[in-house]
């Protein structure tokens, strides 16, 4: 057995140094040159950090575009989905409740135009995005509260819409935090 134990111990130590020490240090070193220097990319308004570019935030006030429901209430100390099964009656009641409350806050919106992502929880609980339709349907509410021209908001959403990768792959989306930051700048 000794024939196998000593090489095992020594080889293990070598690979701990290689894979658990040198490799992460190398990557951390290279990442210093990446956006956010490897600490996560932040977004600032007037020099003050208001969030991470990729991490969604909770927006409940009517004057902001809302993001998606979150199973962790957008607290990025953790992350999780709801893990509700598609046929779970209690879950379906919850979705119905979200639809009803959305319609109360957005009386001008048509039910058949509410995109599913606005009333379903994301996988991470930190989804930063909406589909363009998810932002567009909220324009009337925000225009009313902020006393802004709807056309201004439409062009803002269009300008903030990120096209599919290279225009070819994947869905189009709007980052809600960036959209709301630009919204605050509109006069």
């Amino acid at each position, binding site marked *: 057995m000794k024939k196998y134990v000593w090489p*095992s111990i*020594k*080889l*293990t130590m*070598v690979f701990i140094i*290689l*894979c*658990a020490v040198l*490799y*992460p240090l190398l*990557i*951390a070193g*290279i*990442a210093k040159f*990446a956006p956010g*220097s*490897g*600490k996560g990319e932040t977004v600032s*308004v007037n020099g003050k950090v*208001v*969030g*991470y570019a990729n991490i*969604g*935030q909770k*927006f409940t006030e009517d004057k902001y575009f809302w993001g*998606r429901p979150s199973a962790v209430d*957008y607290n*990025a*100390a953790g*992350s999780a*989905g709801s*893990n*509700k*099964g*598609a*046929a*779970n009656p*209690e*879950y379906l009641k919850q*979705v*119905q409740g979200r*639809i009803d409350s959305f319609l109360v806050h957005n009386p001008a919106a048509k*039910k*058949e135009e509410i*995109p*599913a*992502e606005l*009333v*379903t929880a*994301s*996988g*991470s609980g930190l*989804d*930063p995005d909406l*589909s363009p*339709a998810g932002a567009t349907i909220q324009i009337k509410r925000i225009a009313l509260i902020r006393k802004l021209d709807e056309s201004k908001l439409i062009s803002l959403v269009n300008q903030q819409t990120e096209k599919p990768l290279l225009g*070819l*792959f*994947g*869905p189009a989306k709007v980052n809600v935090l960036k959209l709301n930051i630009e919204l605050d700048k509109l006069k």
Partner: protein
Amino acid sequence: MNTELIGVMVTFVITVLLAFPLGKYIAKMFAGEKTITDFMYPVERLIYRISGIDPNKGMNWKEFLKSMLAINMLWLFYAFFLLLNQAHLPLNPDGNPNMTPDLSFNTAISFLVNCNLQHYSGESGVTYLTQLFVITFLQFVSAATGIACAVALFNGLKHKTTDNLGNFWEIFTKSITRILLPLCIIMAVIMAFNGTPASFDGKDSIVTLQGDTVKVSRGPAAGMIAIKHLGTNGGGWFGANSAHPLENPNYFTNMVELVAQVLIPMAMLFAFGFYIKRKKFAYVIFGIMTVGMLFLVIPTIYWEMQGSTAIAKMGIMQATGAMEGKEVRFGPAASGYWSIITTIISTGSVNSMHDSSMPLSGMMQMLGMLINAFYGGCGVGILNYFIYIIIAVFIGGLMVGRTPEFLGHKVEAREVKIAALVTLLSAFLIKGGTALAAYYFVNHGNADWAVQPANWLNNPGNHGFSEMFYEFTSSNANNGSGFEGLGDNNIFWNVTTGFVLLLGRFIPIIGPIAIIGLLAKKKFIPESAGTLKVDSLTFGILTFTIIIILTALSYFPPLVLGPIAEYFGMK
């Protein structure tokens, strides 16, 4: 055409285009021919010298397995003790606590066996030290163990008669220095430049635009996310795995992670063909596996893009498909594709929550793990498929009335018995485990455990049953994904799945290595007119049929009780 579908197709094509040359390279490298990574040779020589290894000394199948098991046993104890004491060790900026003994037991095994079932959340359950010294370390070495065992199989088939399967230490070392580490460095840099954190800073605290104070978990994640996919491990840095916006920031990184997890399993197939000089055999296997994969992927993408029938009844728009548990930046097509890739490959990382998939998509994910050989895990996929091949050879032999042969070696009772036992073991572990869990859920609902059995399930009815069945399926397949609603951090699930993980890993490795060791020693019989041609399409279809029949016979009843009943209940 729909950009989401194009994205998925292009991802698959890129995977094949990269896997082919990589396979050629792997075959050359293990054959000892000249390759571009020969500059690593001095490093490897140093490693051999420090460890007291003679890389040129061949091993028979028993020596090979002993070396592999000895070092794996050592890692198990090492990981268990670190996780048990992590709170007092350095690199714990967030002040996370020690793991309980049963959770350390489960986690140490889970990462040792390349499964990465996680009954903890990365943000609060581990420290940066254990993320690197246990999790990342085991992700490298468990993948290299799988590759080494597959290469032992190649060696047994390369020569007419041999009892030398190669030197475990040497193949293991080269798997890391020549395959995993270089690829990981490239991928980790890509991840870091797309927004994945890589620094050692702890949680950040910010005030949001609306004025809430929230924390943001971070850490040296980029390197771990690279090996988690390239090594088909799948365990996430963050709780939400690759659905987390820092672990998988955009559609491009999603493509990279999807390509990375299939890359080595697919390359190993091509390497197999080049290495034993039977390219056609490898292409037929590749074709069969791809057909199997498509059978699972196409309906899943369709159902996920279609959306939920229950939500459709509420009268809202599902242009973006079934979105519960999914992220907007990936959409339903890439999420559906990922959910199948990750279950057939034994990665087990997720970019959407499988618990919230449509009922029949959930069944497809389970089938991917129950079969566990369409491409399959890093190295072990090919070993799993080899078991099916032995059974197909046996049945084919019975049909033509000759002693079955495989590549010039007689397949006799002993080999077939081993193959049959390996196959039966899976069915026993999965169904036995699920039955035991269901028994406790029904009869001992208030047992005094961290999560009482009555509170295990996050969903009622058939879907609740699926949550338990999925957990054992995933453990046995060493997959690691889960229907995560299951309350699994308690002594019942930690201990039972821990044992299933160990058996589900090592028996399907020991079995094929023993078979190949026994076969390779036998006298070589030259091909004749009556030889069963294993590289023919006919034989490929026979193997495929046997996979379908074995899986259906073993698992139809639990699938009916779970996803199929759920589907009809929703109509």
